[in-house]
Structure formats: structure tokens, C-alpha cells
């Protein structure tokens, strides 16, 4: 095709650029499909707990699939670390690097990255990468995500600094034996690693083909243009936010039974087209497996800023350039090695919520009440019916906070983005019985637009014993409402609600026995706007649908239901 025909004034063919960009996104998606279809664990396949990304030869992120945001944000730093450990001279075609270190990676050991260089004519032209949450990487408890009783990273399982785990397309058998000898479910880990490798090979093959089709000069010109234009776009959006320092302070319950709350304090500094998010005023790092390494904090800051600035922008290196993440060294949000971090997934929602609270004043149409939070539960042991080991890994999601134009969405994955695991799948694979899973009436934070309801899920153990690991929050500090909206109800976790009921704390580790029922009750999400502004019709509809009981309606919306009050419907 004659170049002159289609060349724009800027010197780059906008049509080729459109098609190349489309191609990058499509490659990231295809890697995701491959990974999901060949994975072994419920978390990866049913839970979509993985991500994929494509990088140029300088380690700049070109595209990512529509997957878990925490993975997405840490990936650029992982690829660059791999490049430092393994410069091109030490790599051969078909080699791949694995890493799961909490500091270099995504913040806890179960997330293993596979990074595969892409070769054209004997040179590395880019990297295909992905990350998957593995069922287990050893350590103190099944699932490797203990919070309580874990005080340093050495208790959390196998740490993999960047290492060439794959040579000439095959796993190095010695290294693989070392890895699998340290995990509880070696077959599953092996299968998921294999699936990850399949995915990077698929991505590498397609990127290679694009380079051959378009040639290096066009590809590199296109990459620069894509990244520069993405940066320009997000800068223009950030510049629309009034300059200033915006603060928000909240608390997490604690980091285990009998511990202090964790301060989640943020300063958001908007200056021109740059935005700095500083968590330095938060607590120090804690002696429990819940700390956030900086990559994890970065990941959710990027996500949050994008939500507030331009949610539809593609995810690449250009978009993150104007976003600066700061945390005091050794603090909860910039933990220093060997801080323990297995359960840091409890914090992701709170990073968003702090920024949301800070920016609400200047971006009220984008802000929302706080989420129900979530519960990340694991039970592990031996299934005495089969004699085989099991790890139940569950994710329980509930409401979104009220928003400027609508009630909070019911029962949707908050910030992290995973599907739930079906009750029928859990019961077929693990010795458990799910007794109920339902919304909790009268739990939503009232407001002009109410929050979503909390969720109750009761899980009964059907084998002799298991180790229960709880990872939740909002037992002590309710999800906040904004602009006059009320907070939702607090969360609770009850052991044996129909027997000798025992209240558990949000983060706990204990042995449970056959017949024990763990009843998780997630918080209600926060409301938006004044209760008095809710229409009577909306309140009556909530009563008809059972989100609010008649008694709850009188208590929370008494004025609105009073026929003498002003009619707003």
C-alpha cells in the first residue's frame, strides 16, 4: 500500500494506527481466553482471577485484557524487573520468566507471573505476560493468604524472585520440582502454570506476526503514538479537576482479633494535569499478613484515578504516566520487605473508597457511597469421603454505594472484578453445604439513592475438620454514606448461628469441625444524598421487593412515608 496515500499531516497513518491498536487489545483478550480455557483451579477459571498484558521491547505496557485491576496495575513493574534480572543477552527464544515476589510482583505470593519475550529475527521486540492467582503456594495455611498469626513473609510460602522457569518452550524440570515440592496442590499449580505458558505463547505468536506484517519502524511509531495520545487524553481529563489537596480518613477494622484499627488516610493532590495520591498519613505496616506493597497500592490507585478521570480509556503505559503514588516507607501502603501480605486483597476496595471520599467534593457526579466490602473465605483440609485434600476458595460480594443518579447496584463484584463461584460447583468439589445465600433486608445505607443490600452466606463443613481463614472487613466501621446519605449496617461473621452462636472477627483463622456453620453477613453499602429526598414511590417499591421491611421503612424513611410530608413522587 503506498504510504503517501493515507499518511496524515502528523506523519503517522491513522488507519494503520487504528488497526494496530485494535490488534494489541485483541491479543491481550486472546491470551485471557487461552488461560481460562486451560486452567485447573476454580479461582482462575470460575473466578477469572488472572490477567494478561502485552509489552514493547522497552517494557512499556501496550494493552491489557478486561480482567482483575490489581493485577493490571502491577504488571508494568513486574516486566521491568524481569528485564533487569534477565537482560536480552541472557535469554533465548522460548524462554520464560516466573516471579511471585510480593515486592516485585502484585503484593502476595499466590499471584505468579509468567513473562515471555517475543522474538523477531533474533531480537526481543516485546513481552507477553500474564498473572494467575494460584490455589496454593505453601506457607502457614492452605491458600497462602493467612492474615492472623503470620508476621513476616517467610511464613507465607514459596518466594520466587525472577527465575527462568521455562527454557526453549519447556518447564525446567529441576526448577519445577522445586516449586511443586513447596505447594499443597502441586497438580493444580502445575496445570495453571502450563495454562499461563500457553497463553503467553499465543500472545507472542500474534505480536510477532504483527511485527512481520507492518515492520519495526511502523510498529514502533504506532506504539509511541498510542502511548503519547493516551497520556494526553488522561492529562486533559485530570486538568479538568480543580487544583487542590483533597483528604479523606477512614479505618479498617483491625488486622486480627484484638488488634487496633488500621488508619486509611489519603491526600489527593491535583496540580494541573498531574495527580498525586499519598497514603503516608496511614498506619505503619502491621504484624499480620495484610500489608500493601507499593505495586499493589499503585494498581488500585491507577484504577481509581481512571474511574474518576476517564473510565473508557484503554489501559496502557501512557495512561499511568501522570499518576503518582506515594506512601511513607514502612507504612501500611508501602510496606518494606519482609512484611507479610497474603491477605492484602482485603484492602483493595479501601484504596478506591479513600480516593472516592477525597474526590467526592469536586466530582460529586462520579462519587458513590462506600461498598458492602467483600468476604474472601478459605477452608482447607482433607475430604474424608474421598481422602483427598481440598481448598474451598470463595468470594462473596454484595452492594455498591448509592450514586448521583441511582441506587447502588445489588450484588456485584466491587473494584476487583470476578464472577462468583456457583453454589453447585462448590458443593460438587468440596465437602461443604451452602445453606443459604441471600440479600439482607434493611441493611442498605438509606439516602436519596440508597446503597445496595448486604449479603448473607452460610457455609456448613461436611468433613471432620478444616482450617478456616476469614478475610473480610467493615465489622467495626460501617460503609460510609455521602452528601447526607447514611452508612449501611455493619458486617458480622457468626459461627453456628442456629446453635451456640459465636461472633467471629473479620479476619480470623481457626479450626472448625463437621457440622459447624460459618455465617457471613456482609455490610450494607452506603447511601447518597439526604434521606428526605427519597421519593415515596422508591421506598414503597423497596418494601414490595423486600429490600426494606415495613418496619425498616418507618425507621429509616419515616418522613418520606408520612402522608403529610411533602410529596415528591
Amino acid at each position: 500500500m503506498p504510504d503517501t496515500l493515507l499518511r496524515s499531516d502528523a506523519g503517522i497513518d491513522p488507519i494503520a494506527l487504528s488497526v494496530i491498536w485494535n490488534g494489541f487489545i485483541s491479543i491481550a483478550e486472546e491470551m485471557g481466553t487461552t488461560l481460562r480455557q486451560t486452567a485447573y483451579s476454580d479461582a482462575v477459571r470460575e473466578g477469572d482471577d488472572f490477567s494478561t498484558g502485552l509489552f514493547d521491547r522497552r517494557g512499556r505496557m501496550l494493552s491489557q485484557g478486561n480482567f482483575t485491576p490489581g493485577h493490571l496495575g502491577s504488571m508494568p513493574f513486574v516486566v521491568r524487573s524481569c528485564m533487569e534480572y534477565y537482560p536480552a543477552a541472557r535469554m533465548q527464544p522460548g524462554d520464560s520468566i516466573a516471579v511471585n515476589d510480593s515486592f516485585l510482583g502484585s503484593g502476595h505470593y499466590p499471584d505468579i507471573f509468567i513473562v515471555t519475550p517475543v522474538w523477531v529475527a533474533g531480537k526481543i521486540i516485546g513481552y507477553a505476560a500474564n498473572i494467575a492467582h494460584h490455589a496454593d503456594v505453601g506457607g502457614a495455611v492452605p491458600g497462602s493468604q493467612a492474615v492472623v498469626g503470620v508476621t513476616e513473609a517467610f511464613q507465607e510460602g514459596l518466594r520466587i524472585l525472577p527465575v527462568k522457569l521455562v527454557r526453549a518452550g519447556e518447564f525446567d524440570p529441576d526448577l519445577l520440582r522445586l516449586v511443586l515440592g513447596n505447594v499443597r496442590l502441586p497438580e493444580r499449580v502445575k496445570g495453571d502454570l502450563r495454562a499461563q505458558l500457553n497463553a503467553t505463547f499465543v500472545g507472542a505468536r500474534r505480536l510477532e506476526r504483527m511485527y512481520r506484517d507492518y515492520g519495526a519502524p511502523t510498529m514502533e511509531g504506532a506504539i509511541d503514538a498510542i502511548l503519547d495520545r493516551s497520556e494526553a487524553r488522561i492529562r486533559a481529563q485530570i486538568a479538568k479537576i480543580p487544583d487542590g489537596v483533597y483528604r479523606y480518613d477512614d479505618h479498617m477494622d483491625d488486622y486480627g482479633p484484638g488488634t487496633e484499627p488500621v488508619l486509611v488516610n489519603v491526600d489527593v493532590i491535583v496540580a494541573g494535569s498531574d495527580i498525586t495520591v499519598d497514603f503516608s498519613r496511614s498506619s505503619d505496616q502491621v504484624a499480620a499478613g495484610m500489608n500493601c506493597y507499593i505495586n499493589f497500592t499503585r494498581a488500585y490507585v491507577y484504577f481509581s484515578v481512571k474511574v474518576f478521570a476517564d473510565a473508557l480509556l484503554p489501559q496502557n503505559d501512557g495512561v499511568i504516566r501522570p499518576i503518582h503514588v506515594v506512601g511513607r516507607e514502612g507504612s501500611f501502603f508501602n510496606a518494606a520487605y519482609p512484611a507479610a501480605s497474603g491477605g492484602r486483597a482485603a484492602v483493595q476496595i479501601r484504596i478506591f473508597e479513600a480516593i472516592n471520599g477525597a474526590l467526592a467534593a469536586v466530582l460529586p457526579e462520579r462519587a458513590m457511597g462506600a461498598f458492602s466490602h467483600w468476604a474472601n473465605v478459605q477452608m482447607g483440609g482433607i475430604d474424608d469421603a474421598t481422602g483427598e485434600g481440598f481448598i474451598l476458595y470463595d468470594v462473596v460480594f454484595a452492594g455498591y454505594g448509592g450514586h448521583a443518579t441511582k441506587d447502588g447496584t445489588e450484588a456485584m463484584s466491587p473494584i476487583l472484578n470476578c464472577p462468583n463461584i456457583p453454589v453447585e460447583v462448590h458443593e460438587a468439589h468440596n465437602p461443604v453445604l451452602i445453606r443459604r445465600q441471600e440479600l439482607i433486608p434493611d441493611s442498605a445505607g438509606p439516602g436519596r439513592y440508597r446503597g445496595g443490600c448486604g449479603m448473607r452466606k452460610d457455609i456448613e463443613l461436611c468433613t471432620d475438620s478444616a482450617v478456616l481463614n476469614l478475610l473480610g472487613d467493615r465489622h467495626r466501621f460501617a460503609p460510609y454514606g455521602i452528601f447526607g446519605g447514611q452508612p449501611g449496617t455493619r458486617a458480622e461473621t457468626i459461627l453456628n448461628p442456629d446453635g451456640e452462636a459465636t461472633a467471629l472477627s473479620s479476619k480470623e483463622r481457626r479450626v472448625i469441625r463437621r457440622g459447624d456453620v460459618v455465617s457471613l453477613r456482609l455490610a450494607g453499602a452506603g447511601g447518597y444524598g439526604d434521606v428526605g429526598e427519597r421519593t415515596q414511590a422508591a421506598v414503597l417499591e423497596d418494601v414490595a421487593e423486600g429490600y426494606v421491611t415495613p418496619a425498616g421503612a418507618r425507621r429509616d424513611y419515616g418522613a418520606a412515608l408520612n402522608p403529610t410530608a411533602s410529596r415528591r413522587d
Partner: protein
Amino acid sequence: MAQIALDIGGTFTDFVLRLPERGTSLFWKVPTSPGDPTVAVLDGLDALLRHAGVAPAAVTTVLHATTVATNAIIERKGAPTALITTEGFRDVIIMGRQKRYDTFDLYLKKPTPLVRRRDVFEVKERVRFDGQVLVPLAPLSLDAAVAAVIAGGYRSIAVALIHSYANPAHEERIAAALHARDPELAISLSSQVSPKMREYERFSTTVANAYVMPVVGRYVRDLQAGLKGRGITSDLFIMQSNAGLVPPELAGELPIRIVESGPAAGVMMCAVVGRREGSEHVITFDMGGTTAKLGAIDDGEPAVMPSFEVATVNFRPGSGLPLNVPSVELLEIGAGGGSLAGTDMGLVTVGPESAGADPGPICYGRGGARPTVTDANLVLGYLDPDYFNGGAMRLDTAAATAGIQRQIAEPLGLSAAAGAWGIHAVANSNMERAMRVVSVERGRDPRRYAMVAFGGAGPLHAARLARALGIPRVIVPVGAGVGSAVGLLAADSRIDVAMTRVLRVTADASAAIARLYTELEARAQAQLARLGSVAGVRWSRAAYMRFVGQGYERRVDLPAGDMGGDYAARVVAAFQETYRRNYGYVDREASIEGIDWTLAATVPSPAGSGGASSWAGPVAGQARLGERPAFFPEAGGFVPTPIIDRYRVASGDVILGPAIVEERECTTVILPGDSATVSAAGNLIIAIGSGD
């Protein structure tokens, strides 16, 4: 003797009247009547029979594809429906699978369920995953639920209990209790509609079935009465999503199976055309006004998937309602002639928003202000402004050029022609992404496939798309504009039954597999008994299998015939071969399990084989209508391009690209370096070069 196929689409209702004795087929098209589609069907039928001089009594078969079930769901116009479920699981339908279909959009709306929360009633009961009853169905709770449903005035009831795929007894007792109270109630049991593991998908399917059942039932009765009133007393068959035909009574019981009726017929047409032209492997490409639909034919048979999604938002996976219904494999994306173009960050964007039919593209002159793919195709010279839809509509080239100039070309610093090319190329790139999913991502090597292109815009984009993917051959069938109706005439009757049973496939599992298939065959036989003639029935088995420990199953065709002795070993071998083909390796030591087991019974076409309509080759040499400039970047820009009349080419004619072949409902573009041959059946066969 006459056979009629009719396909009700969103815009047009298409007819094919096949007259085997005269050796011809007539194509007919009338606007679909909004509200009551039977009006257009019956009026069109009258006109067609009159035109052909055929007496209603001579009609032996009526084959039908319809969007009535789909529209009821998309427009939320089904019957007031109640759901009865297991205590503690009232919110399965509201929860869904809980994933955002766009990670970065925290404000998106979940699909609105077909039942409200207040329409869900609970009974006390519980069954385990292996079918064992843990809590027997409590009579008091059953009575209370039945009373509540009756008092609520619901006419259609879905019953979906946890693990009922493993033991349907409780659902059946609830059905009996409902029936005893009111024999007129429409009842859908999840253990019958979709006996498969995973509660949300099964519940969703069952609720959707209940929701459309009264609507489809009424529609079928009206249609049958209308046909009878005209003296047409022949058998009526309705197309299901699996590309098989069933009598109306079966469609009325499991109406959710006819949701993808029309598209399934289109895919069936591609299978027939492919077979006739010697291509057993086909990628199907149907591009219309708002969307493009991609499907596949493997080994001569339409690829059928175990489930699909209806009523999605911008065709995003996860944004619609999942249905566990065997359905032709179709990937739909928002890329059609009416897709809107724009610029963003110095790039060309196309779709998924569409200008629709009204106001439509700028060139329609009906008030459309934003450029579309059709406007671009007009500016590029691919479309004839005076022969759009057979000349029924004039297109305004100047307005289209001005729109593209102002809104696309100027912001990007391009000429109008390059701007139009950008729209065309980006639309293709979007479709290429989707086609890659259908081909490469699903284990189909494009080099082994032909593409059958149809729909108003399909044949125009097909060659370029085929080239990008490395598909060597494009077929543009005769009657591409009424493709789905043509497909009906070729479809067989087909019954699909399936069940979930987790079974380790070890060497001694043959007997267990045989038992399972005995049960499935009994269920299929019960439905077959109602088909009428079942001469020549063919059985095919497939299973969804995986390595123990994996979560995702792959479909594996199982060996036919005797299931004794080494059958389990042959099943294992079939799985390993399928896996190796898709992923390039297989672990021969790993244990294998089957999850879902399916059985399909096909009975040869109710319309008979009959042969295709003849292709009366006209006088050769008359086909060339002239030439006009059309844009081909590989040729340096606009070049004089021959215009060929599709109605005047003869079998054996060869058309060298660049060339444009025009017919009433669509336009075929042949690229420089490619050539098209007219086959004996009149289909255009384009040999795609590499473009180098």
C-alpha cells in the same frame, strides 16, 4: 406440490417458495408487521401463492424461523412469571454471576431479570450434588408457595431448585401440585428445560422459558389457525437455535429453544451451500444493517454450542441473560452498514452504535447526520447510488462525502477518500477480531476453511476480511439476501437432550456410559415420537469433558455405535485427540472426567432433499454493465472497476478483480489479484490471493 420457508426478521419477512416439480424456487420479501408478525406472514403468503399460481392445498410443508421469542425477551414483553426455588436461594437470579462486563465501569447496569424479587417464592427442601435428598420437600411450604403463586395471578411458573439436575423429584412434585390447582398454568421445570450444573445459568434459562411460553404458544396457535383458514393444512415446522426443525407443539413446550431461530437458519444455509461447493469447513459471515454475525460449519455440520446469551449490551459478553440452550455457534458484534463512525485520539472508530434503519446513514437522506460504514462504502465506489436495494432507494454520494470529509477526514488530516477507507478498514478490523475468536481461538485453522458471506453488507466486506485471516475461498450464495429462509429448506429435524453427570472415564466406565445414554435415548425417543416421520434417524453423541481438576470442559464428539467393552477407552482417546488439536499437547497420564453428556437425533429434512433450484444460465457476455471508479489502496487509489450484473452471469464465468458484482439485496466486491468463478449452482466462488 410446493414447499414454503419463511423467516421473520426485524425489518423484513423473507419467503422461499420451492416448486420441486417445476424445478424452481421463488424468493419473496415483505416488510415485517410490527406488533403482530402473523399479519405480514399471511398477507405475504397470499401474494406469493397468487403470484406463483400455486393453490394453497398444494403446499405440503411450511418451515418457519421467527424472532417472536427473542423479541419478547429483549423488549421485556413476556408473561408475568413466578419462580419457585429452594429456601435460602431467592436471590440467585438477582445476583447473576456478579462480574462487571466492563472492569472500569463502576456505574454500569446489570441485566434486568425477567422476574422481580417479589415474584420469587421459596420452598423448604434440599438435594445434594449427587442427587441424595437432604431435606425432603416440606408439604406446608409447598402449599404456601402454590397458594402465593395462585393468589399472585401468575400464568407462567418456573420451578428451579438447587441441584435439581441430579434429582428432579422435588421439582416434579411441585409441578404436580401446581397442575392440580390450575391445569391451565404454564409450568417450566429446570430439570427439564436445562438439567445442567451451575444454578444461575440453569435458573436463568428456566425463567426465560417460562417468560416466553405463553407468548410463543399464542403466536403458534394464531399462525396455525391462519394457515388453516387459507386452506394450507400441511405440516408446520419451526427452526430451533440448534439449526434443527421441530413441530409447533414441541416448540411450544420448550420455546426458549427457538430464540436464535432465524440466525440458525442462516448458518444452515451456509452449511448447504458449503457442501454443494465442496467446502465441509465454513466460517459463516452475515453482515446486515446493525450487526455482523459469525458462525462455523465443521465437517459439514453447523457448530452447536451448549449455551449463549440473549439481550446483551453492545454485544459485550456477560452483559445479557445466559441461556443453556443448544445453539448454533454465533458471535455477534456491533458492526453493520449502519454502524456510526467517528474519531477519537486521532484514530478512526466504528460502532458499536448504529444509525439503524431510521434515520440511517447520511446517504439515505432521511436526516442521518453521522457517517456510517454504508456512507464510506458509497464514497469508495463500492455501492451504486442508483441501484441500492434494487434501485428502490437513491443514495446521496455528495452528502456522504461531505459528512466524511468534515467529521473524519479533516480532524485526521486526510482526504475524504482516505477517511472513507479508514472507516471501511476499521470496520473490517473490528470484524477481524471477532472472526479470530471464532476461528483461531476455537481451534479452527482459517486456511482449511471457506467463508460463506451473506446479508446486505456481507459480500462487500468478505474478501478483505478473508485475506486478513488467510481464508482462501469466499462463497457468495445465490439468494444471499434471503439466506435464512433458504437454510430452512435444507434443515433436518433435530432433537437435543443433555444431562449433567460427573463421571470419571476410566477403562471400566463403559457400562456407566451406556446406562447414561440409555436414559438419554429414552428421553429423545419420547420427543421423536411426536415428530411424525422418523425414518432415517441419525444419532450423535457428544460429551463435555476435562482433565480431573480443570474447571472448563471441552466438547468432544463421541464414537457412534456399540458401547460395550472398550467404549470408555475410545472415549478417552477422543478426548485426548480433541485436546491435543486445540492446545498442541496432551497429558496422557492425567485422569479424565465427563460432566455434561448430550445426544442429538436428526431426521432428514421435512422438505426432502429436493435439490437446489436450477440456475438458469443467461446469455453470456451480457453481464458487464459498465464501470465506475472504486477505491483499492493496493492499486494506488481509485481505479476504473468493471460492474457485473449478478443476474446475468453464467455458470463457468470468471470475473477478475478488481470488480463489483451487483444484485438487488447486496453487492460483492472482488479485490485486485483475486478472481471469482460462477459455479454450476450459480454461487460466486472467490479465490482469495495473499494480496502481495
